[in-house]
């Protein structure tokens, strides 16, 4: 009975760990322990070890659900960096309904405020943003496929997009467009802070994920 309980506990530990040589190692090692009480103690320790391993952030990021959520977060960056280009195209091609729809997501809720900025933004900044978006998209796909290249794609995309933003934001037209008579906490503090913090958090998570994938590859 005690031996049977030990076997069940180690099988549970193996399930918690998932497909791994370590889960097989725990199960096989139990068969080499003669005493039932010793086997039970060993099995309890294996359950503890499996939960210790499972609860690490890196392991959590290995689950499809967590990677899916992270991929969604990465896709928000695709939308963020394509937004200005999409609005520019809508205005240039005179798809004014689309421009009006996109304008609702901007401070001031009116795309017409951005026409001077659209005119002043050189085409190559859009190339930077589109390239960054393509790399973010590649990052999301690599993440869903559990490839460590996701971090490299993100690390390449983020500076490109940030350089485009920085050049755009340093122009007088941009400052003029984004000057408002009354201060707003959400517009002036919360949204810029989120715009900086969210990509940083994604980058850290992707780095942890890349390390986890490298380690998993080493184990195989």
């Amino acid at each position, binding site marked *: 009975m005690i031996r049977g309980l030990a076997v069940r506990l180690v099988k549970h530990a193996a399930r918690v760990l998932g497909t791994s040589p370590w889960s097989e190692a725990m199960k096989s090692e139990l068969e080499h322990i003669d005493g039932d009480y010793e086997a039970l*103690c060993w099995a309890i320790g294996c359950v*503890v*070890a499996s939960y210790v391993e499972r609860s690490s952030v890196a392991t959590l990021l290995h689950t499809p659900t967590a990677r899916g959520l992270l991929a969604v977060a990465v896709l928000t960056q695709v939308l963020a960096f394509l937004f200005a280009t999409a609005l520019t195209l809508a205005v240039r091609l005179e798809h004014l309904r689309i421009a009006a729809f996109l304008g609702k997501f901007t401070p001031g809720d009116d795309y017409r405020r951005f026409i001077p900025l659209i005119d002043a933004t050189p085409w190559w900044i859009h190339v930077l943003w589109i390239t960054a978006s393509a790399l973010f998209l590649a990052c999301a796909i690599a993440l869903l496929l559990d490839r460590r290249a996701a971090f490299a794609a993100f690390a390449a995309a983020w500076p490109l997009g940030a350089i485009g933003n920085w050049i755009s934001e340093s122009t007088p037209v941009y400052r003029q467009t984004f000057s408002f008579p009354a201060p707003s906490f959400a517009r002036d503090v919360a949204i810029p802070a989120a715009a900086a913090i969210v990509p940083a958090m994604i980058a850290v998570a992707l780095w942890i994920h890349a390390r986890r994938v490298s380690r998993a590859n*080493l184990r195989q």
Partner: protein
Amino acid sequence: MGRIPNTSPQTRELLAALVRQPRTWRYGYDLSKETGLKSGTLYPLLIRLSDQGLLESEWQEPARPGKPPRHAYRLTPKGGVFARSTAAPARRRLAGATS
């Protein structure tokens, strides 16, 4: 400040056990008995050392018939160097405390 990796007493104990016979393959239960570490401590340490390239493992045919293959461990050359360097400061501290 972050914890210095692989310097916990349990890790040093495990490294010391492994470095005593650096080229000999060791089993989990035997290491547990030798070091006094429970499996709940031992396996996370083995996994971490393996991830860091300090430990290598292989499946070995069992010595006793009817038993499953056994996962065996030993230090890599890098792990051997690391284990000796980790044990040396501990020995120096111990010597300093007793002199």
